[in-house]
């Protein structure tokens, strides 16, 4: 086993552990901490696939911003006070459905013909990525910025405390 394979299996084990923790932990805060583990493991996968910009974005936005937001929401909704309402009664059915879906996906992956390796994995330099993002993908980029603006204004309006309340 080469070094890259060892690193991949380590990262994969961490990611699956994080995912299991997110869906199985009784405590909501522990689930959020396992979510951070899964996010950081995915960032490691991105580094392994030579897309370091995406890994940085993943750590900053998922590892930092989104999980902090989720933990704030857990605190404000006092979710951790009610551990008995964390998991619904349909978990056996859900386990069957999700394992069937996973088995189907893995079977599809195993039976399909995928393109072989392309040789050298080239690191995409930041300049080239930014150039593509602002030239070829400029319209989706602007739409994404509009979506973020609308989401920001919407979040402020929704969470604004009315005078009469």
């Amino acid at each position: 086993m080469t070094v890259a394979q060892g690193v991949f299996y380590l990262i994969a084990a961490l990611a699956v552990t994080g995912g299991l923790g997110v869906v199985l932990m009784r405590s909501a805060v522990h689930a959020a901490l396992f979510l951070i583990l899964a996010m950081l493991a995915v960032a490691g996968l991105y580094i392994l696939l030579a897309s370091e910009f995406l890994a940085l974005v993943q750590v900053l936005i998922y590892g930092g911003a989104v999980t902090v937001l989720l933990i704030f929401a857990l605190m404000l909704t006092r979710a951790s006070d009610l551990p008995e309402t964390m998991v619904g009664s349909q978990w056996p059915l859900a386990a069957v459905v999700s394992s069937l879906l996973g088995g189907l996906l893995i079977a599809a992956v195993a039976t399909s013909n995928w393109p072989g390796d392309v040789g050298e994995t080239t690191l995409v330099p930041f300049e080239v990525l930014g150039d593509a993002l602002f030239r070829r993908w400029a319209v989706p980029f602007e739409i994404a910025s509009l979506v973020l603006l609308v989401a920001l204004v919407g979040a402020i309006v929704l969470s604004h405390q009315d005078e009469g309340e």
Partner: protein
Amino acid sequence: MEAVTQQIPLEHFLVLSAILFSLGVYGVLTRRNAVLILMSIELMLNAASVNMVAFAAYTSPEQFIGIIFAIFIITIAAAEAGLALAIILRIFRYRKTANVDEIDELKW
């Protein structure tokens, strides 16, 4: 020294992403707290991103379209998380609960 894409087959990344996606589906179906359902959705979005980046690295490394897609996925996920948490807080203020089974006014 061989490249990473020559040492690890593409299928390994796809299987890992399938496992993460199924775990996310399980979480969405079992969790009753809206914030925890959102966490499971983030897990599913991450699994999709892993797929995109793996395909980008293995099939079109000089075009890196998959990386661009993953950037947009992360952007939309951040917007979605912020907006969904604002809605959850609003519901919590009115109903004093974040349990999705108790928020059933639209249930016929």
